[in-house]
C-alpha cells in the first residue's frame, strides 16, 4: 500500500513509533533522544507531542528514532510501518 505525501509522489507507508506500555518504565532515554517527537508526561512516561498514540516519524528523524529504539533499556520501543 502506498500513500501520497502531498508532493504527488507515492511513498511507502508512514514510519511510526510504538510503545509497549507493559514494558515501559519511563526511563526517559527516548525522550532525550527524540525531543522533536516526544515529551514527558506528569509521571515520566513518553508522550507524543502530536497527541497521537503512535506518532509518525518524519524521514529526517528516522535515524534518531532507530537510535532511540536501540537505546531503550526496557526494549519497549518499536518502529513499524502503517
Amino acid at each position: 500500500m502506498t500513500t501520497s505525501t502531498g508532493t504527488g509522489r507515492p511513498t511507502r507507508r508512514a514510519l511510526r513509533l510504538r510503545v509497549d506500555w507493559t514494558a515501559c518504565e519511563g526511563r526517559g532515554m527516548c525522550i532525550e533522544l527524540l525531543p522533536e517527537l516526544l515529551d514527558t508526561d506528569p509521571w515520566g512516561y513518553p508522550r507524543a507531542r502530536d497527541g497521537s498514540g503512535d506518532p509518525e516519524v518524519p524521514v529526517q528523524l528516522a535515524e534518531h528514532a532507530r537510535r532511540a529504539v536501540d537505546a531503550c533499556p526496557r526494549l519497549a520501543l518499536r518502529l513499524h510501518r502503517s
Partner: protein
Amino acid sequence: MPSMTGSRPAAAVQPPVPHPSARLVGAAAGNLAEHRARSGPIPWRGGPGQLVALVERAGLSGRGGAGFPTWRKLTAVASGSRPVVVANAAEGEPASAKDATLLTRAPHLVLDGLQLAAEAVDAADVYLYVKAGPAEASARRALAERRREGWDRYRVRVHQAPPGFISGEESAVISSLEGRPALPRFKERLVVESGVRGRPTLVQNVETLAHVALLARYGHSWFRQAGTPAEPGTFLATISGAVHAPGVVEAPYGLPLRDLLDAAGGPSTPLSAVLVGGYHGAWLPAEAGLDAPYSREGLAPWAATPGAGVVIALPAGTCGLGFSARIAGYLAGQSARQCGPCVNGLPAMADVLTRLARGRRDPSLVPAVQRLTGLVSRRGVCHHPDGTARMVTSALRVFEADVRAHLSGTCLAAPIGKAV
C-alpha cells in the same frame, strides 16, 4: 420486546423459522432434544470458507462491544495455518448479563455457531472461554449432551475466564489460554494473524456465534429482516437501573432507546440520563436522547456506540456526576497495572471527578479532568484507559449544568455529596 430473562414460551410452540425480531429468544432451547426439534441439526457448510460469504451478505458484526465485521475476522483467520477458535463469554462488564443469560437459556445455539466458525476456518483447536457460574455449568452440561449424541465435529475445551473487567479483552483471552494471567498484552501483530501460541486466532463473542447458528439455517435475507441496512439483525441488551423489569431483552438495531427501555418495563421513575455501552460507554441525556435509534449512526451524536448492549437508566434523583465518579473509581481499580499512563492516570481522574461530585468548589477541577482524559487516551496496550476516558468525558458534557451547580455548591439531583 421479547425478554430472555422472563418465562420462556411453551416447548409445544415450534415455529419453523424464528420471528425476525425474537430470533435468539424464539430459538432458545435448554436441552439438545428440544434444540433439535426447534432448530434441527447443525447446517454444516461442507468445508472451510463456505460460511464467510453468507456472513458477509448478512452483514453480521461482533456483539462483544467493538462491532467489527465478523466476515473479515473469519477471512483473516481462515487464511492462516492451524487456527484456533475461541468463543468468548468472559463478560467482565458488571452491568452486562446477556452472554451468561444466552449460555444458560440457549447453549446449543452458541455451540452450533462455534462449530460452524470452526469449520469455516478449519480450526485445529476450539475453546469456550467462560466465566465461572451458571453459564459455565450450562455450557458443560450442553457439551456433555452433544458428546453423547455425536452432535459436534470439533472438540470444544472449556477454559474458565478469571473474574475482572478486562479478562475478556482479546489479548487477555490469548494470555489466559496460554496458561498466563488474563492480562492484555502488546500486540506486535493482529490476533487474527498471531494469537494463541503464535497461531491465527478467532476470538468471537458467544452472542455473535449464536447469530451465526441462525444465519446458517435461515439465510442472509431472513437475517436482514430485523435491524437497519447498515446494522442488520438483533442484539441482546442488558437493561438495568431505574426500569420496572431490569434484565436481558432482544431487540433489533435501530430501535429507539425509549422503546428499548420499555422492553424492560419502562422507566420506574423520571430519568435524567442513560448510560449506553456500559462502563466504557457514553451518557445520553434523557430529554433529547431517548428518541435516538439504538444504532451506531443513531448514537453517534453523543459519541456513544451500541457496544455490547449495556444500558443503565439513571433516575433524576441520582447525581450523574457522583454515579460516574463511582464507575471511574471502579474502573481505576480494574486496571491491569501494566501501563504507566493507566496506572497513574485512571485513579487521578477518578479522584478529581469524585472531588467535583462531592461539591469541592474548585473551578480548576474540570480542566484537570479534561487534561487527564487526554493523558490516558491511546496510551495503553488495551482500550481500558480510552473507554474510561470516554465515559468521563461524556459525563462532563451531559451533566454540564450539574457541573456548574456543583461548582457553586449545589446539586441538581440530590443533596450535594450524598450520591458519592
